[in-house]
């Protein structure tokens, strides 16, 4: 199971904190961050806008990464807006 987390304003707007997806059952088609992002964006216009590349950053297993990163079952993926700590 792929665990997907959302943070910050993104989490509020899409009203979702956490999702689980069985990527094996989905035929392993979701094998990169880019494909997962595309699948999530297909949900509706809000998801499309706020999960867009450049608007939502992504971390795979708690490390910030780019869209061509491979993903595997049991990975933890997080999408979030640019960070604003400090």
């Amino acid at each position, binding site marked *: 199971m792929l665990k997907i*987390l959302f*943070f*910050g*304003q993104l989490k*509020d707007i899409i009203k979702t904190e956490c999702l689980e997806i069985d990527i094996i059952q989905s035929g392993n088609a979701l094998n990169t961050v880019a494909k997962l992002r595309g699948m999530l964006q297909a949900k509706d216009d809000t998801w499309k806008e706020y999960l867009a590349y450049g608007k939502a950053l992504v*971390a795979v297993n*708690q*490390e*910030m990464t780019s869209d061509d990163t491979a993903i595997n079952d049991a990975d*933890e993926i*997080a999408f*979030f*807006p*640019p*960070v*604003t*700590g*400090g």
Partner: protein
Amino acid sequence: MSHFTQIVVQAQDFDFTHEYQKLRDSNTSDGALVTFVGLVRDLNLQQTVSGLFLEHYPAMTEKVLANIVKTARSKWQLGSVSVIHRVGQLKVSEQIVFVGVTSQHRQSAYHANEFIMDYLKTQAPFWKKETTTQGDTWIEAKASDMEKSKGWL
């Protein structure tokens, strides 16, 4: 005592004096000690801020901060390094973040401290929501912060 690295993410306030003293007591060879403290400001644009709510990504936060400190240690010769970041609800003028660095040379202490803050600002998974008299608003990231952190590459 000897040189240390301390990374803490916590809801409660930190005792600045205690943190300063720990850095100062950690060795007798570092002549320079630089601290940065970020405070909740009362003004953002036209709104009146009553406080901030700080959300973070717990599993990732300390990992990222540890990496930033590791990178700083590879760039400058540092003694002790301390990073404390608060999360949760904060009021106006409360302390948000502490970065303290000791070094034998003041330039290293200044630059490493600024580097840590610049990377924390763009890499560490914290998100600020302002609580204002007109309601809550998530703070937008600043393009200038992205540019600043690129300046160290």
